[in-house]
């Protein structure tokens, strides 16, 4: 190699980017390693997650999908050129020419050009509103067209086609799938599985047409297009999306004379090298043994192998790929493992079909019945991880393999995989090539939640299909390390928060003393007491400063105010939806002035008053209550605010009354105590001025109702909320929020915001939808009733506190003196007061404190 090795990577898709990451992993300082790396991407943006492209329709933005860490391509020695399309390779001169005429030299060339959607040669396929489904630009165009359209057709009933159909259905279109083959997902699924899948998908309102060959697309009579089929039947629709498979982008290679596979694709050897040994090909554009791989995991494999080989590391070779897949299509589990079609000579199979619940399961075993060869799972794919590992690692089958797929009966344990039997080399996450051994190492290094495992190993962060198995392995490893999967709250209770919640509910426990006596030991502490207080409040909603509850409350709840660094408190009256009358503002102004408080408008659209001493609080609140205000619970792990934009009442773009809904929601959920604080946002249109998608619960008005987003967060680790349900009526919206919040309260850990809770929720968003929307656990009515109890038992805590002389007596600095804490001192800054620094206190530069206690 030259003094500087010039590596040119053509393609900045998932695999191309992964290759560069591998390169950087080997040589963090590319310049020092004398490497000059240039990456060409023809799209306007760097690599993004194409596997989760459909989440673009449920609110993910291009930024959310990005795979590139900020600054990644700014490293010395690394250049990324976007909107740059390679048009030819000169293998003799070792150059690549771009479509703008620029010529780039290379020593080693890596082709990661991916694939293009296959569009069948149908007459009229170039008509307007005919799309393919591959890039973010394609999706943007589809979204724009979807607004005008009433109906849509997806050509192709494979994996991508069905995902695309979901997107069309979510856009509210009358959706059809047209498939050439006699069944859906013909590659992964057998005849019987295809039947079950079809009836499941039809029951979701998508029309399925199989064995249909489209011959022409012409003008329609009732819609934009008419699709004419070979038998002269036809279907009319406003938009068409072609998703009939992919073809490798091998034209650069063909034109430069590289060897091509029998079915297309750049022919590669076991090191991912093309027929020209200075050129590698990786991902969907490559053909190994005349086979191409349309999944991301084999592409990553090739990228790793090519990168290793480039640096003379010949230890790994490409040996084909496990094409097992598991996915959820429109809420329907679909999985296939290994030899799903039973093509192996002499193999035997077991089938299970439940036509009532529409579940189909099949396993294919070897002739001698000792090893698992393949499987198909439709409707429920719980066993996927187990079956995949059994097949991959040729583990011995149990004596009666049928029990692997039969529903468990009479409480009998299903024969599991026994993760301990898995070898350390077993790859659990094939997308990111994470082995069981790597999970073990992560646990040994201290990771003990699925969130931490994801962060440090990347397992489960691509398709997510392996998360249940990875969780099982993590727990087994923790046990092995003597970490005894211990989610005990603290030394006083051998239970998790979730278990304590359950105990309190079932045994109707109403005090901490009773809980401690029955289920704990010792005196309790500052962990279990506030947790118990929160659980008791979520269940029964008693006044939190009752004599037997007051001692449990954390700093802020203890005096119904936010304790500040100097021991003073802040005062925040509720302003539902951010709405406040001029008289209300005047009252707040007068009170703040009278008590000499610092005032600031909060991020939650209300007014915060700082600097109140504990003995001032009851008087301040008495005056606020007289002016019509209530506690804003700014101090509680509870509902804070429902932020709203001004909505259709005033705004010329508004679609619905966001303020009205925000006021109603805030009044419904005020006082609800939860594992952590909860923030809402309601926007009156998709311009989203209330930033609802950064909230625990976000609601956005649509033409047809309200869209509900959940588990967003701003703060330390921003997270976009995810779409839980669309176009809800107000009544349904409130029912879904009731269920969502109560399910969160029931299952979250202490101090776990909805975003972290969601990240750690096994089964992810789909599971959450199953529980909240589809009522999979049959909990809906119970959760709604529990929420209604909380709502019905709401009281303004401050009103109760100031009217109860016993409680009011607690609000004083000293038990034996009426004076205040003289350590709380203020100085003036920008026309208001602020706490004095220790130096200022020394120099006695402080201003007098107003209106103590009368």
């Amino acid at each position, binding site marked *: 190699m030259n003094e500087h090795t010039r590596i040119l990577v053509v393609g900045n898709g998932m695999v191309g980017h992964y290759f560069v990451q591998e390169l950087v992993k080997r040589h963090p300082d590319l310049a020092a390693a004398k490497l000059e790396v240039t990456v060409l991407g023809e799209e306007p943006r760097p690599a993004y997650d194409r596997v989760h492209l459909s989440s673009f329709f449920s609110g993910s933005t291009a930024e959310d999908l990005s795979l590139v860490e900020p600054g990644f391509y700014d490293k010395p020695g690394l250049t990324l050129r976007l909107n740059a399309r390679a048009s030819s390779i000169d293998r003799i001169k070792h150059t690549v020419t771009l479509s703008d005429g620029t010529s780039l030299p290379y020593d080693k060339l890596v082709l990661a050009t991916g694939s293009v959607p296959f569009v069948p040669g149908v007459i009229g396929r170039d008509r307007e509103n005919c799309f393919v489904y591959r890039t973010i630009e394609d999706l943007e165009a589809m979204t724009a067209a979807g607004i005008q359209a009433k109906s849509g057709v997806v050509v192709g009933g494979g994996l991508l086609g069905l995902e695309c159909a979901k997107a069309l259905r979510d856009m509210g279109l009358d959706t059809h799938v047209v498939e050439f083959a006699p069944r859906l997902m013909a590659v992964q699924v057998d005849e019987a599985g295809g039947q079950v899948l079809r009836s499941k998908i039809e029951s979701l309102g998508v029309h399925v047409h199989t064995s249909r060959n489209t011959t022409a697309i012409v003008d329609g009579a009732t819609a934009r297009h008419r699709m004419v089929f070979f038998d002269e039947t036809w279907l009319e629709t406003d938009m068409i999306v072609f998703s009939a498979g992919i073809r490798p982008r091998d034209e650069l290679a063909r034109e430069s004379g590289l060897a091509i596979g029998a079915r297309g694709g750049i022919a590669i050897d076991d090191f991912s090298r093309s027929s020209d040994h200075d050129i590698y090909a990786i991902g969907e554009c490559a053909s190994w043994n005349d086979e191409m791989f349309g999944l991301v995991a084999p592409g990553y494999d090739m990228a790793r192998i090519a990168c290793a080989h480039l640096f003379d590391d010949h230890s790994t070779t490409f040996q084909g790929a496990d094409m097992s897949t598991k996915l959820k299509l429109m809420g329907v589990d679909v999985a296939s493992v290994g030899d799903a079609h039973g093509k192996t000579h002499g193999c035997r199979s077991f089938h299970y079909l439940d036509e009532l619940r529409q579940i189909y399961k099949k396993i294919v075993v070897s002739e001698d019945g000792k090893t698992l060869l393949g499987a198909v799972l439709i409707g429920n794919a719980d066993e996927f991880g187990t079956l995949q590992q059994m097949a991959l690692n040729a583990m011995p089958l149990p004596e009666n393999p049928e029990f692997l797929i039969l529903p468990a009966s009479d409480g009998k344990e299903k024969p599991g995989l026994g993760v301990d039997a898995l070898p350390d080399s077993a790859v659990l996450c094939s997308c990111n090539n994470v082995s069981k051994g790597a999970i073990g190492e992560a646990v040994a290094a201290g990771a003990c939640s699925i969130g931490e495992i994801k962060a440090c190993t990347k397992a489960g962060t691509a398709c997510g299909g392996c998360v249940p198995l990875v969780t099982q392995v993590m727990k087994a490893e923790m046990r092995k390390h003597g970490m005894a999967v211990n989610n005990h709250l603290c*030394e*006083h209770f051998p239970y998790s928060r979730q278990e304590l919640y359950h105990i309190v509910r079932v045994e109707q426990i109403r005090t901490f003393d009773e809980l401690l006596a029955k289920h704990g030991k*010792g*005196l*309790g*502490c*500052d962990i*279990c*007491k*506030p947790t118990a207080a929160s659980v008791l409040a979520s269940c029964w909603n008693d006044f939190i400063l009752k*004599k*037997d509850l*007051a*001692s*449990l*409350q*954390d*700093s802020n709840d*203890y*005096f119904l105010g936010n*304790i500040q*660094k*100097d*021991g003073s408190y802040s005062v925040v009256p509720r302003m539902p939806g951010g709405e406040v009358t001029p008289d209300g503002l005047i009252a707040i102004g007068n009170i703040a002035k009278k008590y000499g408080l610092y005032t600031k408008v909060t991020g939650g659209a209300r007014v915060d008053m700082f600097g109140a001493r*504990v003995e001032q609080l009851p008087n301040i609140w008495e005056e606020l209550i007289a002016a019509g205000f209530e506690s804003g619970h700014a101090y509680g792990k509870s509902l804070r605010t429902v932020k709203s934009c001004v909505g259709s009442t005033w705004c010329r773009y508004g679609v619905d009354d966001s303020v009205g809904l925000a006021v109603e929601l805030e009044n419904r959920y005020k006082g609800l105590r939860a594992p952590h604080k909860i923030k809402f946002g309601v926007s009156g249109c998709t311009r989203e001025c209330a930033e609802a998608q950064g909230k625990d619960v976000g609601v956005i008005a649509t033409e047809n109702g309200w869209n509900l987003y959940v588990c967003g967060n701003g703060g330390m680790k921003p997270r976009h909320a995810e779409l839980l349900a669309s176009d809800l009526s107000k009544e349904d919206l409130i029912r879904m929020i009731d269920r969502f919040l109560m399910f969160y309260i029931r299952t979250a850990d202490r101090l776990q915001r909805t975003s972290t809770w969601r990240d750690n929720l096994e089964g992810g968003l789909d599971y959450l939808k199953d529980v909240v929307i589809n009522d999979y656990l049959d909990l809906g009515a119970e959760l709604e009733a529990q929420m209604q109890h909380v709502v019905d038992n709401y009281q303004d805590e401050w009103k109760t506190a100031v009217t109860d002389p016993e409680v009011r*007596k*607690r609000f004083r*600095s*000293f*038990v*034996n*003196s*009426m*004076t205040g*804490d003289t*350590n709380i001192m203020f100085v003036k800054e920008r026309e208001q007061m602020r706490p004095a620094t*220790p130096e200022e206190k020394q120099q006695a530069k402080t201003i007098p404190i107003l209106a103590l206690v009368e």
Partner: protein
Amino acid sequence: MNQLQQTATSPTAGNPPMSVPAEQAGTWQAVCSLEDIWPNTGVCALINGRQIAIFRMKSDVLYAIDNHDPHSGANVLSRGIVGDLGGEPVVASPIYKHHYQLRTGECVEDASTQLNTYPVQLRDGMVWVKTTA
């Protein structure tokens, strides 16, 4: 409030402070009635200009330590949550959650920080604290 101040200056009969042996330096003062401290909570007493946090634990066991939290610089310990760590009674500061042992005044997270502790007694329903001048 009035009633309290009266009690503080005229201790009830029983064990008046005068009965404390003379060799123990300092003076006993009645601070409040037991009922003024809700079970499992603390209050702050102002004694000769000094802020002292008094805690009422299970079975009316009483402890008194400084109210000043050196880690935050605020006078707040009486407002902390009480409990035990490994059987040792503690209070958690409401500001940054440092734990202080009620018997010794030692900070659990930082043994170099030591608060003053004060003898405290329950006499005929009144809480008495002894301070040195």
